[in-house]
């Protein structure tokens, strides 16, 4: 056998792997660690179930979410009486509804299934908006520093001082007021039409867009500042790497972990913002079901029919749990500084 053949054979025996192992892709590496984390897998599974629930809501929900059966107002199925024994003396039993019917006789279960649509839309659009604006803004500010940083951060500071939630309430209330007669053809009219067509989601996105990216921008800037002075950046600069290359190739991979984690952990915040707005009657337009508005409706009868509050509240809490577990798992999987320490 020639020297060449021996070398090839050895290489094949080693599984084609060169002796010095190539560093794995950050994301492949992180994903492998993520699926080893039990809590994160549970969270991820719940999120996937929720997505399926939201997409196939018409197939899953046994009834219409808006059909009112006045004869079945506030009915409860028999099995619920063992969970809420206080309802025994007065409850009207109807086993047609899995979780009972609400104050106008709509199926609670179907409304909860459809409610996932609103919450999940917010859960995915919210991070998209804030990551896109916040990361770009923050990294430019942090990387260039000096006067650029100063001006950019002052702008963020000004916006930061804007009480976001109050502002969203203001926007929503003005565009939705029944007393307001908005003339067709004006800008306000087209905005409120668009909002109505999106089921009232437009202003929720506007509100999140206005308030969430600033936190992201600050975080990104802080992270960039902390990495910018490290030796490997200096090394990259000495070998003549361009600003863009340093930013995307050297800085971003080192700070993306905290950003993704922060954003995943911010998702429950977006979900609860939407739920709160719907709770005070400024979120999605009725009869589109949102867990927030269901909790609000249920809270009116919490003394007599607690099931009408408890189930949507549980749905909301479980969804937020799932995203938090997932965010936690991602943090452990992605945090580059905790790498190799396990």
């Amino acid at each position: 056998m020639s020297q060449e053949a021996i070398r090839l054979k050895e290489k094949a025996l080693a599984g084609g792997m060169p002796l010095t192992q190539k560093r794995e892709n950050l994301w492949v590496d992180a994903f492998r660690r993520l699926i080893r984390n039990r809590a994160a897998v549970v969270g991820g599974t719940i999120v996937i179930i929720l997505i399926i629930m939201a997409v196939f809501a018409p197939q899953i929900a046994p009834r219409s979410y808006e059909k009112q059966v006045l004869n079945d107002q506030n009915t409860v199925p028999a099995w619920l009486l063992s969970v809420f024994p206080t309802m025994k003396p007065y409850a009207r039993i109807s086993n047609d509804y899995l979780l009972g019917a609400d104050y106008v006789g709509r199926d609670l279960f179907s409304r909860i299934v459809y409610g996932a649509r609103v919450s999940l839309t917010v859960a995915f659009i919210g991070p998209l908006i804030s990551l896109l604006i916040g990361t770009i803004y923050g990294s430019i500010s942090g990387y260039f520093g000096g006067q650029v940083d100063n001006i950019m951060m002052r702008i963020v500071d000004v916006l930061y001082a804007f009480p976001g939630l109050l502002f969203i309430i203001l926007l929503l209330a003005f565009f939705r007021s029944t007393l307001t007669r908005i003339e067709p053809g004006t800008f306000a009219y087209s905005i409120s039409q668009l909002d109505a067509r999106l089921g009232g989601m437009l202003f929720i996105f506007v509100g999140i867009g206005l308030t969430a990216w600033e936190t992201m921008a600050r975080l990104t800037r802080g992270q960039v500042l902390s990495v910018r002075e490290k030796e490997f950046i200096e090394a990259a600069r000495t070998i003549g790497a361009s600003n863009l290359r340093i930013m995307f190739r050297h800085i971003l991979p080192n700070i993306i972990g905290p950003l993704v984690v922060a954003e995943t952990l911010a998702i429950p915040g977006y979900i609860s913002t939407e739920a709160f707005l719907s709770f005070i009657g400024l979120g999605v337009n009725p009869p589109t079901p949102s867990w927030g508005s269901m909790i609000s409706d249920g809270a009116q009868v919490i003394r007599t029919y607690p099931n009408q509050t408890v189930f949507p509240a549980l749905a909301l809490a479980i969804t937020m749990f799932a995203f938090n577990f997932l965010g936690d798992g991602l943090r452990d999987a992605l945090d580059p500084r905790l790498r190799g320490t396990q």
Partner: protein
Amino acid sequence: MGRYIARRLIYLIVVLIVVSFITFGLMHAVPGGPFDREKALPPEIMANLEKRYHLDDPLWKQYLQYLYDVFIPRLTTQSPKGTLEDDFLISTKIGGVWLRWMNFGPSYSSRSRTVNDIFRQQLPISAQLGTMALLVALIIGMPLGIIAALKQNTVFDYLSMSIAIIGVSVPVIVLGPLLIWIFGVTLKWLPPTGWGAKPPYLLGFLPTKWGWDFFKFAIMPSVALGLGSSAVIARLTRASLLQTIREDYIRTARAKGLQERLVITRHALKNSLIPVVTILGPMFAALVTGTFVTELVFGIPGMGKYFVTSITNRDYPVIMGTILLYAVFLVIANLVVDIVYAYLDPRIRYD
């Protein structure tokens, strides 16, 4: 540092002007006015009302007049007239001269009150709720985070972080009704709605009596509001402390034979608190706006209820006043955070 603070205070003025301009512009850009009713008012009455509140003036004049009334302090020898148009938040006699500042104007919807009246009566309640919630957040959050980090990967760690995840996953509108149902309706331990503290207040907002009459109302709302923040603090404290105790200077401190307790308290804790301090600014903002939610859930007569009703009524002065006031809070909170940040980390210089 002094110069930095002075600069930030000037910047506060800029913020307030920007915020007031956006809010004012938005309020007037959207169709509809404060005196729109289901059945339109006769034009003469409408004209009279608009004249009374100067709504017939050009917009720029209304805006400048508002800025003048709110921001410019006045020194006069005249004593206050006590009318609705003449109510200043700060009104003190120094020598023979009155210093009068911050006239937010009369409320349109409750005709006998000024915005300042609403601030005086409702703001202390919101402030009490916010403070209690912040205390709950710190008292629960920091110890949980520290224990979890020091006993990493033990049952203490998992337990603390489970509590933290529960806390962060349960928003006020979930926890509030559940608490009301369990402790207010089923067990009847605590009153489901209302608020206990009554004026006069210490320092403008602290209740004078810290008895059960205050706490029985305050416990549920402040836990409902503070739990989420406590979870954030716990997780951040843990993450930060874990990172810190892997640093070289901690190894050095241990190597030179320092007691473990001192290593943690003197070296690790102080440095790991820095990220925790930075979150306090946004957290304060979340708590401040969170008081609105909590007040609505628990029926607490704070600013939240008045803000929501003022918006549906198009009560311009109340809307403007509330938003400006909260903007001031947020700016000052962030300033305090920055100062503490510089104090904790001497590498940070602001000048």
